[in-house]
């Protein structure tokens, strides 16, 4: 057991951070957020650069043109993407690598849905991965509008760097427009939840940095606001949320077998909370500055709201985790800890 990152993993992460710093610096994020026509489609040049860097093909075997790496490495890359608030249907295109031609190379964008609801970057996508059934399906679409089969309407997206459609209905299985592909939809859904959690994790750590940096530099009442216990303690709780989420997300990336679903649910639940609540607290630390468009914190909060509703809601994760508990309980041996004191008490003197 060595939970820490290997040197290769550190190098991979550093490479991704370097790529994003060069191709997607903060000014780029800000200019996307300010796009006058609403959230723009993904930058095809950057998409291709990601493809060349192996972001999408990462987990394909080398003979399939991939890097032969696993979920832990994918999690590290998605954490970096979340940290930089990189927009685009990253998770879906990554999952589509090997299933949709061009996805692995970053030559096309793919979005995905597991049920009716919000679809990101639908109008610019070349394909939609449908994960509502047992087997995954691919719906090929022509970029430029939402596919009719989905009964989608465009939303004025709260996340100004992510165009959204609200999809009313997925095409029913025997539907000519969607083709079945050889992949287990529920596995892909779990992976999508995990990689989304990794993005939330990156965002959660980034808002800790933003809050700490602001608290160090902003002075009020003659000293840095970071010297006030109220601000210190907000920042401390932010770090705790992020660290706890990290332990859960990294561990879930290593989990195999049936308990994997529970680990992923825990990861999604904690990473969603960390992203949204950290952005929220970061905003509070920033005071009035946090309420302006110019501060980055609102972009994290809005992306966090979007991501927390994707793939696995809190309610679903909590129910799944509760059911896992019950399953464990039915396998619990009657050891010295397992006895429920209720039974002991119930056997006692009842005056009747």
């Amino acid at each position: 057991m060595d939970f820490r990152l290997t040197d290769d993993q550190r190098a991979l992460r550093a490479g991704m951070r370097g790529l994003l710093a060069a191709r997607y610096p903060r000014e780029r994020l800000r200019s996307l957020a300010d796009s006058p026509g609403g959230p723009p489609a993904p930058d095809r040049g950057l998409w291709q650069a990601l493809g060349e860097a192996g972001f999408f093909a990462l987990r394909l075997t080398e003979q399939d043109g991939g890097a032969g790496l696993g979920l832990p490495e994918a999690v590290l890359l998605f954490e970096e993407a979340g940290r930089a608030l990189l927009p685009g249907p990253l998770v879906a295109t990554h999952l589509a690598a090997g299933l949709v031609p061009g996805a692995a190379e970053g030559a096309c964008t793919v979005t995905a849905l597991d049920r009716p609801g919000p679809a990101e970057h639908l109008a610019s996508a070349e394909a939609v991965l449908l994960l509502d059934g047992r087997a995954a399906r691919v719906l090929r679409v022509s970029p430029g509008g939402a596919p009719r089969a989905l009964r989608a309407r465009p939303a004025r997206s709260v996340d100004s760097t992510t165009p959204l459609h609200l999809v009313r209905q997925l095409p029913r299985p025997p539907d000519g427009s969607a083709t079945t592909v050889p992949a287990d939809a529920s596995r892909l859904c779990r992976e999508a939840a995990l990689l989304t959690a990794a993005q939330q994790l990156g965002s959660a750590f980034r808002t800790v940095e933003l809050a700490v940096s602001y608290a160090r530099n902003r002075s009020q009442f003659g000293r840095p606001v970071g010297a006030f216990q109220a601000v210190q303690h907000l920042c401390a709780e932010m770090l705790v949320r992020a660290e706890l989420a990290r332990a859960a997300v990294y561990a879930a990336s290593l989990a195999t077998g049936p308990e994997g679903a529970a680990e992923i649910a825990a990861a999604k639940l904690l990473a969603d909370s960390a992203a949204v609540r950290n952005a929220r607290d970061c905003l509070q630390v920033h005071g009035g500055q946090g309420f302006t468009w110019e501060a980055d914190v609102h972009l994290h909060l809005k992306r966090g709201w979007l991501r927390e509703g994707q793939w696995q809601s809190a309610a679903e994760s909590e129910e799944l985790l509760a059911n896992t508990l019950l399953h464990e309980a039915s396998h619990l041996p009657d050891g010295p800890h397992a006895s429920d004191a209720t039974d002991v008490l119930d056997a006692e003197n009842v005056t009747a």
Partner: protein
Amino acid sequence: MDLTFTKEEEDFRDRLRTWLQDTLPRLPPEPPADDWPARRAHDCAWQRALHDAGYAGLHWPAHAGGQGATPTEYLIFIEETERAGAPYVGANFVGLLHAGPTIAAEGTAAQRARWLPPILRGDEIWCQGFSEPEAGSDLASLRTRAVRDGDSYIVTGSKIWTSHAEVADWCELLVRTDPSAPRHRGISWLALPMNAPGVTVRPLRTLAGTTEFAEVFLDEVRVPVTYRVGLENDGWRVTMVTLSYERGTAFAGEVVACRRTLTSLARTARANGRWDDPVLRRRLGRLHAEFTALWRLVQWNTCEAAHAARTGGDGAPGAGASVFKLRYSQARQELYEAAAEVLGPESLDTRHEWTAQRLSSLSYTIAAGTSQIQRNIIAERILGLPRGR
């Protein structure tokens, strides 16, 4: 990132599991909670069994009489003993986890030879004399003073929150040896024989009605200078080694136990019908996520400690342990709040173990550094925020 175990680690786990299966059924039943001499005897017998099987001081270095196990093996030990329902470390806690490691790290060869073997064999019990009535979170403001008199210190003052004081042989004691020095200087670490003239122990009743803590009054108690560990006035640094142990893997076994309790909650809720309430069910589901992550955080911290040990560090958990302590203490309280919800009116009966635990869990956000202090540590030492004033 790798959470699988090596062949050696799996072998270690198998041997331990087999030994536990053989040994635990032969242990005598747990004594009553308020019979301290019986509890001491029980805890010491368990420690002696561990010692004879080669598990005593598992993670202590060999030069201290330990087994030199890796942090991973130590974690396996904690996990397996807890899962098997083995006795808690109990009265041996301070010896094995505070005083012993301090002596191992800072004591002379003679001190190690005198004090460590009886700890490992379960022959001698230690207690801790750090906190004082007027020095709680502000430990460095302690007032118990030790005045040098020839080859001895004359110690006068009082200590509080001392576990197992009634049955302890020794007390690791912090005293002020230089009242004129700045707060963190002028403190020394002494081994106090609890049977020395002038030592009085008075049980302290907690809000749970239990008396696991005591106050210790010291009235001109004579302690030989040779019982000082580390240099005179260097006790604060010596203590920090000990405290960082307390904030590390010390809670690992409790996390395993909490996970078991959570499973029992689900079973009880299913049996009494409360499982049908989605509010409660989702609350238990979220606690499951929390404790899963806390266990992963224990593993993370253990691996960091193992790495530090391999690369020449001391293996003591760093400030990151505050992250764990802060969240764990809160989660433990939430767990027993949820337990009360599961029990319903039954939770008003203190004979229910979960009700007793609900009460004792209230100390977790206070003891060993309040949550407020932990947040300060995280903000200032990890995040580098300016010192609060």
